[in-house]
């Protein structure tokens, strides 16, 4: 009887170990820190660093977009918070926006970030109640970023110089 229990426990432990290995290869953490973040996400205990988030928001409002993104990266290292990813995308939009042209590289990164935000908020519409922003949903932001990436004859319209940043 005792040997049967040992067999069962052994089998259970090794199957759990195998599942851990499969999870490691699926999530591909690059550092031990990322590994712990991924484990927290898997366990449902992941939380962003609110202090860093607020500090990034202050930088964002002062138009220091790159510095804000660095802070948000530290606040949400696993990129698992929809709200943070929305703000990251917004910072790409604001930095890449120009009266005469849009920075394509920054807009592309913005689309990636907003897609992450949409995926993370699956099931409900992501809405951010921030009076400082003119776009409050991820869908609006995504549409704006994608529009900026499209090329058309209307790009040469001189009246476009009168457009405003959202």
């Amino acid at each position, binding site marked *: 009887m005792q040997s049967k229990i040992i*067999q069962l426990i052994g089998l259970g432990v090794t199957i759990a*170990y195998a599942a851990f*290995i499969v999870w*490691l290869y699926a999530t*591909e953490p690059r550092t031990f820190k990322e590994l712990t973040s991924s484990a927290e996400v898997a366990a449902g205990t992941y939380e962003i660093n609110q202090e860093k988030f607020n500090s990034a928001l202050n930088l964002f409002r002062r138009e220091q977009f790159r510095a804000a993104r660095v802070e948000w990266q530290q606040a949400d290292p696993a990129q698992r918070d929809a709200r943070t990813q929305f703000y990251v995308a917004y910072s790409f939009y604001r930095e890449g926006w120009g009266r005469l042209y849009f920075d394509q590289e920054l807009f592309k990164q913005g689309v990636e970030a907003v897609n992450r935000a949409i995926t993370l908020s699956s099931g409900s519409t992501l809405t951010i109640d921030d009076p400082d922003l003119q776009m409050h949903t991820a869908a609006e932001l995504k549409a704006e970023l994608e529009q900026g990436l499209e090329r058309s004859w209307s790009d040469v319209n001189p009246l476009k110089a009168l457009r405003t940043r959202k």
Partner: protein
Amino acid sequence: MDFVVLPFVFLTVALLGGLRVGAESGTFIFIAPPLVTLLLATLLMLLLVRGGLVRLHQWVGSDFPPLTNVAHIWMLITIFFASAQAFNSVLPERGLLHWMFSFFFLWTLWNNQFSSFDARRLLRSLTILFGTAFVLKHLLLASLYSPEGSWLKRVAGALVQGVAFGTFDAPPFAAVTGYIAFFTLALYVGGLILFAFAVNGETTVVIDPVVHDHQQLSAAERPAVIQD
């Protein structure tokens, strides 16, 4: 042993076999086993059965309790993935060298299918096979592609002048990757040795000295001995 230790050893090989450490960033890079390693692992499993290291009839059958059958099948699965990852750890990641190494592994394993093996010879042969591949990849090739440059790089540069080095392109990894690969392969071969003793019990096949001597002769010499 066969329910905890051995699956744990083989699963650790499966974990470490695809682990690399980036040269510049120092971050982990997990490389899932390429399709060809699964093919190589299948051939190796056949070889393990043919060599008597895995005795299927003693392992799985209606005579055993279901739990034992499940545990033994699980052990076979862990050996299979450990084998695939052991190959993964000694295969160059991409380029022409990846396919050259794969071809040589396939060739060796395919030839071995038609050779006579016992468990001990098979273990020896596998140790040599993985040892050679380790030396080639983690010592010679790593030296060839080291960012600092090495004597080997200069010699190879002189020998293959005119051949684009891009053909032999390989991603640079930190030196610790070689240590991980060495530990992985040692664990794999050690696991197989443990397995041979723990699960199969007596692995040494006791044979008559006359038969043994006969086995040492070449194929051409054997008919002459039989005629005498």
